[in-house]
């Protein structure tokens, strides 16, 4: 009975680890297909880290399960452990030191991965277009270099998420530099997957983040630092549109609403979006 339970117990945890791995792989594919940066590097880094983490997991978990299965109390023949009074010897110290050294080495490797991904993501391309982002309780404002300005205010009582049209428009394939500040409390500008980037906004200082997406469509932004009652409704959408159409809108030749309607392809992170994006990538090639 105990043996079956131990195995069930191990299986559940392993399953969680493996099932949990799926979103990372999917995210990587979607990021590749949409050309979402720096999300691509992020998923690449995380996927590698996951394998090291799985390694750590099995190094501990397998002995743990094996020992609980084998070294059990049996009346009359095994009533106390073989080390009940005999002290552990030099082997134990050696094993613990070896383990500590192995973990240390693994950490150093992961530190390099972390540093590489961090430096790559931090570099804001020089040809980036700068958009000023202002967060306040509970709305976003986006200001373009030529003074054009867009808002996003989501009213949970009247707005529907699916056809909500607050947010901003950016050209496809052009890096966007975000210069962000807050007017009241701390907020965080979160670009949902497949971009998957985050930066806090402060009153009284300016913080930066950047992104670039190749595939036109509708992407999602929201606040990810708790900021009060309507924190969950501090949403905005990004419409990524082809460069020519963006120029036309930027110069006032086409209406904003038409452009938003045309590219409302709902590329939030879903399986449908993934299928759609991969098709799109093929067309572009």
């Amino acid at each position, binding site marked *: 009975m105990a043996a079956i339970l131990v195995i069930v117990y191990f299986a559940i945890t392993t399953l969680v680890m493996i099932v949990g791995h799926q979103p990372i792989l999917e995210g990587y594919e979607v990021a590749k297909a949409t050309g979402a940066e720096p999300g691509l590097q992020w998923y690449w880094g995380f996927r590698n880290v996951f394998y090291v983490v799985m390694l750590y997991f099995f190094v501990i978990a397998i002995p743990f399960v094996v020992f609980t299965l084998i070294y059990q109390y049996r009346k009359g023949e095994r009533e106390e452990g073989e080390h009940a009074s005999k002290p552990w010897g030099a082997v134990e110290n050696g094993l613990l030191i070896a383990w500590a050294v192995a973990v240390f080495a693994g950490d150093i490797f992961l530190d390099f991965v972390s540093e590489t991904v961090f430096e790559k993501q931090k570099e804001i391309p020089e040809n980036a277009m700068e958009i000023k982002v202002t967060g306040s309780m509970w709305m976003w404002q986006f200001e373009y270099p030529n003074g054009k300005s867009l808002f996003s205010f989501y009213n949970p009582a009247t707005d529907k998420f699916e056809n909500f049209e607050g947010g901003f428009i950016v050209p496809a394939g052009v890096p966007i530099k975000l210069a962000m500040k807050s007017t009241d409390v701390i907020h965080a500008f979160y670009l949902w997957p497949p971009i998957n980037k985050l930066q806090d906004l402060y009153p009284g200082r300016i913080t930066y983040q950047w992104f670039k997406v190749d595939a036109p469509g509708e992407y999602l932004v929201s606040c990810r630092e708790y900021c009060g009652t309507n924190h969950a409704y501090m949403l905005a959408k990004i419409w990524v549109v082809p460069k020519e159409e963006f120029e036309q809108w930027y110069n006032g030749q086409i209406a904003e609403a038409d452009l938003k309607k045309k590219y409302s392809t709902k590329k939030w992170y*879903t399986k449908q979006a993934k299928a759609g994006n991969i098709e799109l990538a093929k067309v572009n090639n």
Partner: protein
Amino acid sequence: MREAIPTGVPYFGASLKEWIFTTDHKKIGILYLVTSILYFVVGGLFALGMRLELTNPGLQFWSPEFYNYLLTGHGAIMLLWWAIGAPTGGFGNFLLPLMVGARDVAFPRLNALSWWAYFGASVLVLITLIPGNHIKMMWTGYPPYALNNDAGNLALYVFIIHLLGVSSIAGAVNFLTTVIRMRAKGQSYWKLPIFVHSIITANVIQILGVPSLAGAVTMDLFDKYLGTAFFDPARGGDPLLYQHVFWFYSHPAVYVMLLPPVAIAGEVISAMAKNRFFGYKAYVIAQWGVVVLGFIVWTHHMFVTAAADWIKIIQSITTMMITVPVGVIVLASTLTLFKGALKFNTATWFALGTIFMILPGGLTGIPNGMLGIDYGLSDSYWIAGHFHFVLAMIITFGIFAGLYYWFPKFTGRFAYSDGLGNAGFFIMFVGAMLIFGMQLIAGLHGMPRRYVDYPPIPELVSAHNWMTVGAFLFALGVLISFLNLILGMTKGEKADANPWGSPSLEWWTGSPPPPHNFDKLPEVDEDWHPYNYKKA
């Protein structure tokens, strides 16, 4: 030194007056445990309330204001009452003097004061249940939001923290003095049970860290009510400063909560496998490693803030280094099973559960500690899943392991039934895997923390549905476990003084112990060790 006033035998049948005026560490320990269990139930009900709301997108049950109150309450209560109160206050008070062979703690009256400060804070928390007094600033209380009226009554929050701080520091001084000055004759530091070592390390963190937290929230208070300008940017302050000061304590605080339950699991595993603790000295050194490293990693809570890159990079590396001592602790606990004779009962299951939870919990922490990766994980459900595995589950399972293991010591009886206890454990385990595993997955799909509502993305909706199922399963498991213990108090099988055959000093006296703990103060010889199971 004055000894505690003996107040009747056994403490179970003591009058109300005795309970109120007691300075007996065992009674105070029981008071701590009962209070923290009551608040665990309250915090759990808050969590169920949140799960109801989040099952489906849209607002079904609560307003965003009330949801934010539930969330703040759940976090603060579970951390301050359950995670610190039960292992350190409850088990620490009851067991530490027994484990070092003392008649009481060093300062029994200060110990009573400690509990009364804790109790005072407990009563004040109930005030926030009144609709006008909801606190909605989250347990972190970040300014400038905490200074905003939307956040609720800051003064009340700060007063509660101050009371708990008094309680923690008084308790810490008491425990440390007891261990340093009142150990049994012949019991050196290397002959203390690892649980005592965990209480020492946890309380060293409390003494060094609590003043930092108290300072941070006091500056918050002055900013709001006295017009100072520490954090308010409108007057030239800097909210980033609060985050640094706050996390300087609140990260090490995680180890105050974590080390004792992990040590409890270690005690149980060693006693149930009847095997000497593997790498006992390495384990103790690793605990100190956690303390030292714990104080230089706080910026990993702030990787997406405006903090400088250089400190983020340094503390990203130190954060990764935490895996070295924690790895030693996990491996030592695991290898204690090697060549053992493991007895399967409810205490064993909960102890194994505690150690096992370090795997999904600790390993999901590795990507969080990596600066380049954390940019996509911070403030998401991934973080919520991570710290619920690593904190909430290790602590809860550890406390239950301790409750089942020392239940004979507390009450003189065993828990009602092992079958019922095991059922409780497995229901809790599956429930926990569902809730927090799904939180990890929802986090990878982008679900942000602290949301009352979320976009109707199919992956998120199904993850949230499963989380609610898991939450109710978990609650059922907790209910069964408590029922088993409560029935055990009156109907459980009677236990003798040392039912598990452990040489540790708390078993050298009756169960439950008499008011003076030991008829004759224990003295130990050179051969003795708390994990030396040689037949006497």
